[in-house]
Structures are given as structure tokens and as C-alpha cells.
């Protein structure tokens, strides 16, 4: 069973890339925190004077961009040839 799965390399459960999922969720969180930091009450009595939402939002956006760039640069690791042919997955893995 597992041998056929591996040798064809076509139907792997990992074809949707976890890096895009992580990148987009952290990116959305980054935007939300950034806006909260800019528009909301920074509650500096809790944080000791830092606008924590703003900074955390910026860092999250940076990490998010990192994941998306990684995914763009190295898209192939475990390709499903049906889904990813447009981004240059080598046929037959």
C-alpha cells in the first residue's frame, strides 16, 4: 500500500502546503493586531509603556511574509502533480 503511494508520488496527503496556511493566518493576525495597535487603546499601564499590539502585529506580518516567500521560492517539497503543475513541480516527484 504505502509503496505504491510513494513510488507514484501523485496522491500525497501533503499536497496543500502548510506554509501558505501558517503564512496567511499569521498575516491576518498581524493586520488585526497592527490595526488594534494603531486605532485601539494601547493599555500602556498593563504593558509598561509599549504599544504591544503594534509591535506584535509588525513581527507577525514579517514572519508571515517569510513563510510566503519560502513557499514561493521552494514550492515543490511534496507536490501533487494535479494541483501544483502551474508552479513548476517536477512530474513524478
Amino acid at each position, binding site marked *: 500500500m504505502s509503496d505504491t*503511494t*510513494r513510488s507514484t508520488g501523485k496522491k500525497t*496527503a501533503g499536497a496543500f502546503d502548510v506554509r501558505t*496556511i501558517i503564512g496567511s*493566518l499569521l498575516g491576518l493576525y498581524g493586520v488585526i493586531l497592527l490595526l488594534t495597535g494603531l486605532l485601539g487603546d494601547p493599555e500602556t499601564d*498593563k504593558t509598561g509603556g509599549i504599544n*504591544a499590539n503594534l509591535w506584535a502585529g509588525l513581527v*507577525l506580518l514579517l514572519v508571515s511574509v517569510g513563510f510566503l516567500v519560502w513557499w514561493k521560492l521552494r514550492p515543490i517539497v511534496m507536490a501533487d502533480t494535479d494541483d501544483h503543475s502551474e508552479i513548476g513541480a517536477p512530474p513524478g516527484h
Partner: protein
Amino acid sequence: MVYGGSGPTPQWGRSLCSEVLFEVSAQLTVMAQTLIDANWVDYGILILYFGFVLGIGLLARRHISDSVDFFLSGRSLPAWVTGLAFISANLGAVEIMGMSASGAEFGLPTVHYFWVGAIPAMLFLGVVMMPFYYGSKVRSVPEFMLRRFGPGAHLVNSISFALAQLLIAGVNLYLLGTIVQALLGWSLWVALLVAAAIVLSYITLGGLSAAIYNEVLQFFVIVAALLPLTLIGLHRVGGWGGLTDRITEAADSGAGPPAEQQLNSWPGQALSGFDSPILSVIGIVFGLGFVLSFGYWTTNFVEVQRAMASDSMSAARRTPIIGAFPKMFIPFITIIPGMIAAVLVAEIADLKAGGTPSGVATGSAVTYNDALLYLMRDLLPNGLLGLAITGLLAAFMAGMAANISAFNTVFSYDLWQDYVVKDRDDGYYLRVGRLATVLATAVAIGTATFAASFSNIMSYLQTLFGFFNAPLFATFILGMFWKRMTPTAGWMGLVAGTASAVLVAFLSEDAFGSLSLGVVPIAGQGAAFLAASTAFVVDILLSIVVSLVTRPKPAEELRGLVYSETPREMRTDPDEASAPWFRRTVPLAGLALAMVIVLNALF
């Protein structure tokens, strides 16, 4: 939680369970009062996470066409994904809150749960044991038992494992319910059903892939939640120097153990419960570092399953080793917040100074378990607060999902397929796996409600199941390296080892609470160390004696299962020799070991 659920951890579950009883009765008289004020931004962050989790389940569903896809992710995942999932499956909220609790109470010695109690065993798993797990193409750890020792040891291992997973999933769910109740004010039932429904949906849809992808996602959400909390906390106390000054000041006026014990990881007397520094070091190194942690990390299928899902032998071996790198830094975002809470949060500082503050977190009396929740309340503005709540809930759900995805594999392959309905087509077992997931979730909800009324019974059951872990490592390691070891020795060693651990627990002062007799004057973590060590020694000795008088398996049946009968090509990955050093198992493990030694020397 002892060590059955999430590795060797402080005993958190027990004290929490009994307190929640008070909380529930208190809530009948007082209107529900929440610890924090969550606003719509916080809720938005939480709902967004739930959306992503379910989306992963739906996406993963498209890629499942047989049982290997469902139970083992088609053996297709790269090492960094399985490596992060490996530590995430263990990084449940019970562990996060338990570690910060221990950090608040004892300080730095808590790092031993990571640097001594996890990393060496994880490296050993990758370097020494994984070649047999992955190379023999077994689909679960109990299946390795079946191939090596036959049905006796297999049944003992798979039944105790499956039952323990159900129990732990239930306890996890129950604790999640109580914390959601404390933080957001939802009723226990609503929290329980919502969490169970989400976990059920994504595992039934996406199987192990969905569980693993969610674990990786959860890892980043937890770091995003805990890192700002730690940094803001350090900023508030004036950096590391400020923190040590304030802990010293508090300790000098009688709060907690002496300051030098709180601020140095060794010899860690307060943690181990031994007065003598030498005994303390021996207890930590052998009890925690060897017997407890090797038993858990190297044989627990919840962990090993993550490595089995990887795409090559090399990736499987590197899974726990890659996991070791983030694992060694997790203490900095769990234990240090606990230490900060002990000087910054009024309630926790009061508790440490000997007071009995009351509150609304996980019980009407404040305990160290609440340290992280109170720190969140005191330090985080709305927004980051939502992220922190999301991180905790994510950790709870991922912990429960890990237990359930390991349960459905062992139930379908090791129990149903091997003993109940044999020789059906693959699609049949895939359906069994999905049904087992539904069943397991229903049982977990049942267990959770049971835990609400009978918390003591639950914590003793957890302690009991923990003892099944203790002798497993002995049987595995002897079986992997001694071809003479016989099937009879396999199951007898396991049963006798477990029984001896249970016996020691009964004779100790408090391992089974008031049921313990107190004949052996040892309590707390020391009792857990002693019970596990006894199980290990009894298992090894009995296995050797029984092996010498019973008939071993023929050597040709041990190919891939025992070191001396396994050709080198089966144990290693041919592609690895040409890979750069950072993609090879042994250099990577050496680097991790060196780093952890440096960390031990620094703190």
C-alpha cells in the same frame, strides 16, 4: 497529569480537578464572573482560528483515498513538518500551564522537564530506535510489539494505550471546558461540545494530515501568544536582572525555596523532593531523565506516529531531532512567565508568600496552575489577549486531537483488524477509522462529564495508566538489541513491570492519594521516579530470566526488528550520506546535544 498524557510533567491535573468542584458549586450561587474582559477583537481572532482549523480538515479530505493516507498521512510529510508536530502533540495546554505553574513555584529547576526529561530521549529515539519503527514498515508502535513478540505483548500494549488515550482526551476536554468558562464565561457544556465538535470534524475529514497540519499551525500560534507575554513581563520587571533581584528579595522574606535554588537549575532539590543535593541530581538524571522520559518519548505512539508520517527513513529519524531544537527553547516562554507571575501578579505572589488568595480562574482558591492566566490578565491588552486565549485553546484542541488520531489508528489496525474483523478491503478499515474517531469523541465527552463529578477517580486512573508506560521502554530496548528475548518474556515483562510500579505507588505516601499506604517514605515526584525505576528493573530482570527458559522466535522472523538481524541498508537511508550535514541524522543530533549541554551549564 503525571506522565501518561503529555510526557513527564508536574502533577497538574490532580490538583486542578479537585478545585474545579469548588468552582462549579461556587458558580451555582454566584453569577458567572470572568477573569478577563474579552472584546470583539479577541473573539474575532479566536473565530478566525476555528475557521482555519476546519478549513484544514476540508482541504486534507481531498487527499485521502486509502487508510494509509488517513492514518499515516500517506507517509508523505517533510521532516520539519513532522518535527514541529512531534513537539506540538506534546505541547498541550496542560503542559504549558503546568510548566508555568512549576516555574512560579520552584523557578528554574523546572527546565529539567525539558533539558533532561525530554531532549536526550528524543535524540535517542531518532538515532537508535526510529530505524526499527520506520524500517520495519509497521503502522503503529503496538504493531511493532506484535511483530517482535506476538499477540500477548501486543494486546497488553494496544489495549492499555487505547484506553489511556480516551481517558487523556476526556481529561483534556474537561480542563479546556473549565478554562473557557473562567476566561470567556461560557458554560462548561457549551465549551465542551464546541471544542469536541471542532476536533471531531477536522479529524474525521482529514485524518492524521489534518491533525498534524493543525499541530504545526498551533505551534506558531502558541509562540505568537507566549513570546509577547514573556517579553512584556520581562520589560515590566526590569529584564532578567530585575527578575532575579525581585525573586531573591521575595525568597529572602520567605516566599518559596531559597533564591539560589530558584535561580539555578541544578541540583534542584525543591523540584525532586530530595533534601540531599547528590540524591537530587541522581533522582533527576535517572528517574526523570532516564526511566520516565525514555519510557514516554520512545514508545508513545502519539509521538512516534508523527515520525511515521514522514516521507523517508532519514526524515523519520530527523523528526524528533528537529523537534528537539524548538523544544529546548520552550522553557523560556513557559517557565519564565511563571517566574514573572510569582513576583508581578499580586495573587500568585501572595500564594507564594504563604497566603491563601481567592480568585475566579480555575477554582475559587488561587493555585500556581493559574499563574499564566493571571499574567495574561495583568499584562496583555485586548488583541494580544485574544491571541493568547486562542493559543491556549489551540493547545488544548491539538492535544486532544493527537490522542484521538493515535487512538483511531491503534483501534482500527491493532484491535479491530487484528482480532475482530480480519481480511476486509482497505476502504472498510478507513470507514472503521472514521467511526472510531466519532466513538472516541463521544467517549471523551462522557469522560469529561464524569471527571466533573469524580475528579479523584480520574486522577488515580491517570496515574495508573502512566504505569503502563514505565516498563515499555525496558521491553522495547531489550527486544531491539537482544535477539534471544522471547515472546513470553515480552508480555510477562510488561505485566510484571506495570504491576510492580502500581505496588510501589500503593506503598508510597501519596501516589494514589489517600489509597496509598505510606509504607515507603517517599512522596510527590520522588514517588513517581521510584515507581517507574522499579518497573524498569523488574521488567529487565524478569525478561532476561524468562527468555533463558522459553523458546525464542526464529532469527529470520526478526529481520528489521532486532539490531543484529537487520542489514545495514534497512536501518539507514541511502540518500542521507550525500546530504549536507544539517540534513543528516547524527550530526544534527550531536548539535542538539551540545546545545542542551551548554544551556545546562549556563543556567
